């Protein structure tokens, strides 16, 4: 558990925005031209992180290497399905890695919303962009700032829940905390991120409140 708190290393906001642009451009170039240099740049930054994610979630190094390669090949072959208006490149990659891990462990695919579902609740095109913002970059920018502002103890629990262990119980054990404390830090972090996204103009979608409000 040596690098348990790696999210502590703060990066300047500009560096983080530059990285998002570079990686998003890489995915576009792979999807459009099968650009090998773009893939190499993407791979050199993310392959080791995908492997860290898989090993952190309890897979052996051998299986992590194998799955990491499968995940990066999905990036190579499916980059044209990346939609920069919906998510940052890192988010797209994270969901692929998460889903591939679930497929592997469970033997059946992760269950997700199907966009061609006739019951899909869509009001207009804008609602389908990330959290209803003008563009994914704006959302990613605000998200980055919100994550930077989280108290260390919340950021640590978020890092662990996304990238380490299989349950809140694991995290509680590692940190020697009651499980209720782990859960409440997660809730607080989620609320903090959500309200910092809500701060500014375009968050009408999140502000909408009907009968029973989302638990703020």
């Amino acid at each position: 558990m040596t690098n348990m708190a790696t999210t502590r290393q703060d990066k300047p906001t500009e560096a983080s925005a530059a990285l998002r642009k570079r990686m998003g451009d890489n995915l576009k170039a792979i999807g459009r031209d099968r650009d090998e240099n773009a893939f190499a740049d993407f791979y050199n930054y993310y392959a080791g992180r995908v492997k860290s994610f898989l090993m952190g979630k309890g897979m052996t190094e051998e299986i992590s290497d194998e799955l990491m390669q499968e995940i990066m090949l999905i990036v190579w072959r499916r980059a044209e399905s990346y939609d920069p208006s919906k998510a940052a490149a890192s988010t797209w990659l994270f969901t692929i890695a998460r889903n591939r891990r679930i497929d592997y462990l469970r033997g059946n695919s992760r269950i997700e919303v199907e966009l061609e579902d006739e019951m899909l609740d869509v009001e207009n095109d804008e609602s389908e962009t990330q959290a209803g913002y003008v563009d994914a970059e704006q959302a990613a920018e605000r998200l980055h700032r919100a994550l930077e502002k989280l108290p260390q103890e919340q950021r640590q629990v978020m890092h662990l829940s996304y990238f380490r262990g299989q349950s809140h119980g694991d995290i509680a054990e590692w940190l020697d905390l009651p499980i209720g404390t782990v859960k409440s830090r997660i809730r607080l972090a989620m609320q903090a991120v959500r309200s910092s996204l809500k701060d500014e103009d375009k968050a009408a979608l999140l502000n909408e409140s009907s009968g029973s409000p989302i638990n703020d």
Partner: protein
Amino acid sequence: MSVSHHLTDETIHDYATGSLSMPMETLVACHLTVCRQCRARAQMADGVGGGLFDRLEPTPIKVSAMDLISRSDAAADSPASDIRNGASQASTAKVGTTGPVKGVPRPLGRLLPAPLEQLRWRRVAPGIKQYKLDDQHRRHGAFQLLHLAPGAVLSEHSHHDRELTYLVQGSYRDSIGRFQVGDIADLDGSIEHQPVVDSEEPCIALIATQSPVRYSGVIGKIMQPFVGI
């Protein structure tokens, strides 16, 4: 669709981190289909995963990008090489119907062999019928549809852990409020409830629990092994 009961932050977070069971994922995906508000929150939770992903400490890797590409191009003719295809074939294999089931979000529709009223419902108590979705997941808790006649009253009960209920048809009322089509009841062990069906048509609910529920009434205790909620 106007939805008034939503997923909790905790469930949204657990869905994003990939730590829910397949039945729980199905319930979450059904609600996300009909609730763009929660869908936006789920996208935010994925975005948190992406944002944190950039800050992960990388682990050394053994294969270069170019080696990986050239190896994959060499194997491109092999049908097994496209694992993404493999994954989608696996998910097609469990599809129970040839087309979408009307009035049912696809994540649930894919598990049904027939339209709702034509399922082989099993009568478990007066006014209460049950359709089990997957015995394979039984040890992690129940995964089933309940078909409740108008006016039916369930025994008052609470749960050891989390229970998710997605309203497929009709409506019911309990101490928390009124639940209608598309609503989700996202309950933890602290809540005791006694749903009463208040719709004119039968109420159909999709339910996943993580562990067997605790009943407080004697009748509940007798019913529990049969109803399995």
